[in-house]
């Protein structure tokens, strides 16, 4: 079943923060986050495994709440280069397929 992402779209000024949420009705083993710029392929950002860990690089981090079957992506001090559509992909384990949410469109303006 497709995970639900919220919000559907976000508009930010450079330097502002944003949070994108991803929730599933199924028990999750892993959550992936990808960013896709217009006309380009999705690019892998990070993967979180069950255990409630938090990951991050640069000013983008994510958390995974296994009990709530939710993950959140945190974008801090946004830059123009952060613009794009963010997808979460979830897997229930057992080498199961990755199912993607509908995406969150993020636009960062000067």
């Amino acid at each position, binding site marked *: 079943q*497709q995970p639900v992402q919220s919000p559907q779209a976000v508009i930010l000024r450079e330097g502002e923060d944003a949070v994108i949420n991803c929730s599933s009705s199924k028990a999750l*083993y*892993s959550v*992936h986050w*990808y960013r896709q710029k217009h006309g*380009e*392929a*999705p*690019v*892998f950002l*990070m*993967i979180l*495994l069950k255990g409630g860990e938090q990951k991050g690089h640069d000013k983008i981090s994510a958390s995974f709440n296994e009990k709530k079957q939710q993950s959140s992506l945190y974008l801090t001090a946004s830059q123009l280069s952060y613009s794009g559509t963010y*997808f979460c*992909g979830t*897997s229930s*384990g057992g*080498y*199961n*397929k*990755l*199912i*993607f*949410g*509908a*995406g969150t469109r993020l636009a960062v303006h000067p």
Partner: protein
Amino acid sequence: EAGVTQSPTHLIKTRGQQATLRCSPISGHTSVYWYQQALGLGLQFLLWYDEGEERNRGNFPPRFSGRQFPNYSSELNVNALELEDSALYLCASSLLGETYGYTFGSGTRLTVV
């Protein structure tokens, strides 16, 4: 290191024809995934191959099929094309296992007229 390559970049077919899309994974990656991205929509899972075997299949009709070759490259075949098959078809590859992210190719834009 070469990324995931897909060919052709664009493909125009007539309704009822067959389309063949190709994908070469990153060297060393054994898993290949196919996704359909219709205009403005998210990524819909089509097929997953690993070591030449079909591991999982999405909710698509049987006219969507594919295979993986001994060199781990893959092709996606779509028979009896319908107008609603028009979409960007993305291929991704990864190492087998839950801890690895996917590397996507740039896709094949299929247009059915």
